[in-house]
């Protein structure tokens, strides 16, 4: 049995760890609320952009445009959105697992990292990291997304990369965050979603849409905006998910610490009682020997 002093020391150490996890939980709760607000504010833009883009592509189906088909390069760019800090449970490793577990071949993948944790993990596994935008995720603003989108499109036009993917954590709600891998370019019109709309939207959908400038030029101008808005949307969702994941991780760490403290407290009291009992036995035995 461990000595009373050892147990006491251990209990104090667990207690101070618990204080840290408690504080981190509070901090990430506040940050989560802020990040969730931002994610909700940017949602209409994100959705509207996606809707316009897909409806435009379904109407302009026969257009030949470099952005709409993949070029000869076999390389695939993956924008990996993770966090710069750890202690967020499985948040970062889930994204990494998503990439290693996907059917993208390691030698074809070029990583555009947003977030140090994911970058380090992937580099360690032998992935090629070509760009690092980790500071962006601290405080995502739309301009950063635009810069990254411009770089991606430039590499795409140069033929260095043939397809662009995005790996981020979708913020469904406070407790549920879904690691998602989506294809950004070439843009594919998803026909299922267009069919689902009903009522007033359906009426708007069948009205022929005019474009000014013509479709082809419009696509050239719209795709960069589409890319930046998707990236921005992914960043704000990822920040919300990160804080949600950290809040959960810290919550369970705090309650684990609570359990350990209770357990150690019990052990400590037992040790104390047995020390007292032993002392008493020794005194009585001594007194009897004398008498």
């Amino acid at each position, binding site marked *: 049995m461990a000595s009373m002093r050892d147990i006491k020391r251990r209990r104090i150490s667990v207690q101070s760890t618990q204080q840290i996890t408690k504080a981190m939980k509070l901090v990430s709760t506040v940050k989560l609320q802020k990040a969730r607000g*931002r994610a909700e*504010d*940017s949602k*209409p*833009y*994100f959705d*509207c*952009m996606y809707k*316009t883009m897909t409806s*435009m592509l379904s109407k302009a189906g026969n257009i030949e445009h470099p952005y709409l088909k993949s070029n000869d390069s076999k390389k695939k760019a993956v924008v990996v959105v993770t966090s710069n800090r750890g202690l967020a449970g499985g948040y970062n490793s889930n994204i990494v697992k998503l990439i290693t577990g996907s059917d993208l071949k390691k030698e074809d993948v070029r990583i555009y990292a947003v977030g140090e944790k994911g970058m380090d993990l992937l580099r360690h596994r032998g992935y090629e990291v070509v760009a690092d935008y980790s500071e962006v995720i601290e405080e995502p603003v*739309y301009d950063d997304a*635009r810069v990254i989108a411009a770089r991606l499109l430039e590499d795409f036009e140069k033929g260095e990369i043939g397809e662009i993917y995005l790996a981020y954590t979708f913020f469904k709600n406070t407790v549920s965050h879904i690691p998602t891998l989506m294809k950004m370019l070439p843009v594919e019109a998803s026909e299922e979603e267009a069919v689902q709309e009903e009522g007033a939207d359906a009426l*708007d959908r069948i*009205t*022929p*849409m*005019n*474009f*000014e*400038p013509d479709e082809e030029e*419009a696509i050239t*101008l*719209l795709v960069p*905006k589409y890319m*930046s*808005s998707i990236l*921005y*949307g992914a960043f704000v969702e990822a920040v919300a998910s990160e804080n949600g994941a950290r809040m959960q991780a810290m919550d369970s760490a705090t309650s684990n610490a609570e359990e350990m403290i209770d357990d150690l407290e019990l052990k400590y009291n037992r040790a104390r009682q047995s020390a007292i009992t032993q002392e008493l036995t020794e005194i009585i035995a001594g007194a009897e020997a004398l008498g």
Partner: protein
Amino acid sequence: MAEKFKLNIISPERSFYEGDCEFLEFVSTEGELGVYAKHIPLTTILEPCVMKIHSDGEEKKAAILGGFVEILKDKVTVLAENAEWPGDIDVARAHAAKKRAEDRLLAKKEGVDMVRAEAALKRAIARINTVD
């Protein structure tokens, strides 16, 4: 009284404006455009410009810095990359940005990104015009 249509201006950070509108003015890549209700369906790309929203005899101005517009029969959606009310604009900064962009365009040096300087100039001018 002119017929009204619904106007939504959305920027990535927030829903910027939501309400009824009688007449809307802005500048697209193809030139200036005014929209009344029952306009033909049209999607067009915006230049950085002053957007004028006419509603109930009032005229509201806003700086719209890039984006695009989707016009439907009774609804107009503006997806702006950046939108600012006159009160949000830092005039001194806009003037400084205008000067910087002009210098860059005049210098015509190698390696200076003309397209970017021009875009910066357009944005600065749109901001200044919104306040005036």
